[in-house]
C-alpha cells in the first residue's frame, strides 16, 4: 500500500531551534495518501511544532517540506485552500455563533465548499447553530473545529490533539468522525499523546521524543519489533498442565498462583504453541488470556520512561 500511493506530505531533515532549545532535530517522514498518520509522544516532544511547520504556520531553520507538492511556507495561501486545520487549544470569538463561524469559513475558500448545513448535521451540531461559541461544551467546540477543518472539502486534514480534555464518550464519537474522514478518501495527519487513541485510530504512527522521531510504522509492527514479549494467563485445575507448558520451547518461564498459570515468552509463536498444547493434551481451562504489549510499552521501551512522565 505504501509503495503504490504517493506521499501527500514529505518532510525531510527538518530542524527548528528556539534559542538553545532544539525543538526539531532532523525530522523526516512521509504521510501517504488516504491514511491516518499519527505523530505520538509526550507534551513538548515537538509534535505541534512539526505539524505547524507542515501547515505553513512556522518555518523550519533547515530541511524541506512538501505538502501536496507545494512548499507550505512559500505557497501558504494556495496550500490553505486545499488543507483543513484544527489547532491545539484554539478558540473562536466568544460571541460568534456556530453558523456564523461555518458560514464565514466557507466564504474564505475558492473551491466549492462542503455543505455547511450537512456538516453540522453530521457532527451533531445542527441544534446548536445559533449558540454562541462560549456556551458550547468542550466536545461541541472540538466538533465545530472539525467542521471548520472540513468546510473546504480538503485533501489533507490536520488534527492537533483533538480529543484532549474530552470525556471518553466524546472521544469515541470523535474517533468515529476521523475514521469517517478517511473513508471519504482524505488523508489525516494527527498528533496525540494518548497511546490508546493512536492504537485505535492510526494506520501508521511516528514516535517522537525531544524533537526527534524514534521510529515509524504501523502500531502492530512497532509492538512486534520493540516489545515481542507475550504473556499468557491460563486458569486450569489440571495438575499436569504446568509441566506441559514448561516443555514448550517458546515458553521462557511458567509461574503458578493457585489454579492460575502465567506463561511468558517471545513472539506470536508462543500463543499458537500454548493453544496447540492445550488442545493436544486436552487440558480443561476455565480462563485463557493473552496480554499483549501496546504502544505504551513500546514508548517505555524506546525512551526508558512512560509517556505520562
Amino acid at each position, binding site marked *: 500500500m505504501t509503495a503504490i500511493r504517493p506521499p501527500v506530505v514529505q518532510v525531510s531533515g527538518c530542524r527548528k531551534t528556539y534559542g538553545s532549545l532544539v525543538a526539531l532535530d532532523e525530522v523526516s517522514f512521509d504521510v501517504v495518501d488516504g491514511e491516518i498518520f499519527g505523530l505520538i509522544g509526550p507534551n513538548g516532544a515537538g509534535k505541534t511544532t512539526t505539524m505547524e511547520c507542515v*501547515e505553513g*504556520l512556522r518555518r523550519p531553520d533547515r530541511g524541506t517540506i512538501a505538502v501536496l507538492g507545494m512548499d507550505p511556507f512559500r505557497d501558504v*495561501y494556495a496550500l*490553505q*485552500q486545499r488543507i483543513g*486545520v484544527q*489547532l491545539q*487549544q*484554539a*478558540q*473562536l*470569538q*466568544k*460571541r*460568534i455563533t456556530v453558523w*456564523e463561524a461555518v458560514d*464565514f*469559513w466557507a*466564504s*474564505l*475558500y*475558492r473551491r466549492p465548499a462542503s455543505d455547511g448545513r450537512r456538516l453540522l448535521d453530521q457532527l451533531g451540531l445542527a441544534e446548536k447553530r445559533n449558540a*454562541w461559541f462560549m456556551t458550547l461544551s468542550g466536545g461541541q467546540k472540538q466538533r465545530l473545529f472539525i467542521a471548520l477543518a472540513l468546510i473546504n472539502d480538503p485533501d489533507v486534514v490536520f488534527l492537533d490533539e483533538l480529543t484532549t480534555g474530552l470525556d471518553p464518550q466524546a472521544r469515541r464519537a470523535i474517533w468515529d468522525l476521523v475514521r469517517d474522514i478517511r473513508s471519504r478518501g482524505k488523508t489525516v495527519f494527527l498528533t496525540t499523546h494518548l497511546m490508546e487513541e493512536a492504537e485505535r485510530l492510526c494506520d501508521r504512527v511516528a514516535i517522537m521524543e525531544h524533537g526527534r522521531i524514534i521510529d515509524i510504522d504501523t502500531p502492530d509492527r512497532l509492538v512486534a519489533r520493540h516489545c515481542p514479549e507475550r504473556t499468557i494467563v491460563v486458569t486450569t485445575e489440571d495438575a499436569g498442565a504446568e509441566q506441559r507448558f514448561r516443555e514448550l520451547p517458546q515458553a521462557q518461564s511458567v509461574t503458578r498462583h493457585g489454579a492460575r498459570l502465567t506463561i511468558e515468552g517471545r513472539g506470536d509463536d508462543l500463543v499458537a504453541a500454548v493453544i496447540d498444547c492445550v488442545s493436544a493434551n486436552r487440558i480443561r481451562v476455565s480462563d485463557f488470556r493473552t496480554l499483549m504489549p501496546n504502544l505504551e510499552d513500546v514508548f517505555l521501551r524506546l525512551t526508558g520512561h512512560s509517556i505520562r512522565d
Partner: protein
Amino acid sequence: MLRGLVKLTWLEIKIFLREPMGAVGTIVIPVAVFVGLGRVAGRTLSPGTLSDPSTSFGASSVWVRIILPVFAALLIALSAVVSLVTIISIYREGGILKRLRATPLRPATILTAHVVVKLLFTAATLALLVLAGKRYYPSGVNVSIWSATVALLISTWSVLSLGFIIASLVPTARFAQPIAAAIFYPMVALSGLFVPLASLPPGLRAVARLLPLTYAVSLLKGIWEGEPWFAHAGDVAALAVVFAVCVAISSKVFRWE
C-alpha cells in the same frame, strides 16, 4: 480577499454589539457625559454669554465650546484604541488570531477588519455627539459633522497605529487595558488641551511635541473652532508620519501568538 474583509468586518460588528458593555461603553457613555457636563457647565455661565456664542470670550465659555467637545472626541478615539489593544491581546491569547491565520485569510485582512470596526464606531459616536450637541448644548455646536468626523478619524487612525505597537508588547490580555490606559491618558494631559503647550516647562513641551495626541488635539480644536483645514495641514502631516512610523514598527514587532 475583499470578500473576507467585508464579511469579517460585519461579523466583528455583530460580535462587538453582543458584548454586554460594547455599545453602551463606546457610544452611550461618551455622549451622555458630554451632554451632561455641558449642561452643568452651561448653567454656571452668565446668561449673556450663553445667548450669543460669537461674543463669548470668557474662559468658561471656551471650556464649554471647545475643550469639552474635543476632550469627549478624544475619549472616543482613545476608547477605540484601548478596546482594540484589548481585543487583539484577547484574540492572541485565546489562539483566535492563530486560528484565523490558518485559513486563506491574510493577516493584514484580519487587522484591517478590526481597525475598520473601531473607526466605524468612532465615527458613529462622534456623529451622535455632534447631533446631541446641536440639540442639547448650551451654546450649540457649530461644527460640521463631516469635518469633525474626518478630523477624528485621522486622529484615531494615527493613534490606533500606536495601539498596535502596544498590542504587540502587552504580555497578556489582562494587562492590555490598564497598560494602554496608563500610556494614553497621560498623553491627554500633555496634549495641550487643558494646559497650553506654551505654558509647559521646556522638557515636557519637547516630550509633548513627540506625542501624536498633541497633533490630534491641535487638529480637533482647530476644526471645532471653525478654522479651515489648510491651517492644520501640519497636524495632518504629523499624524500621517506617526501612522507610517508606527505601522512600520508594529509590522516588525507584532506577534500572532
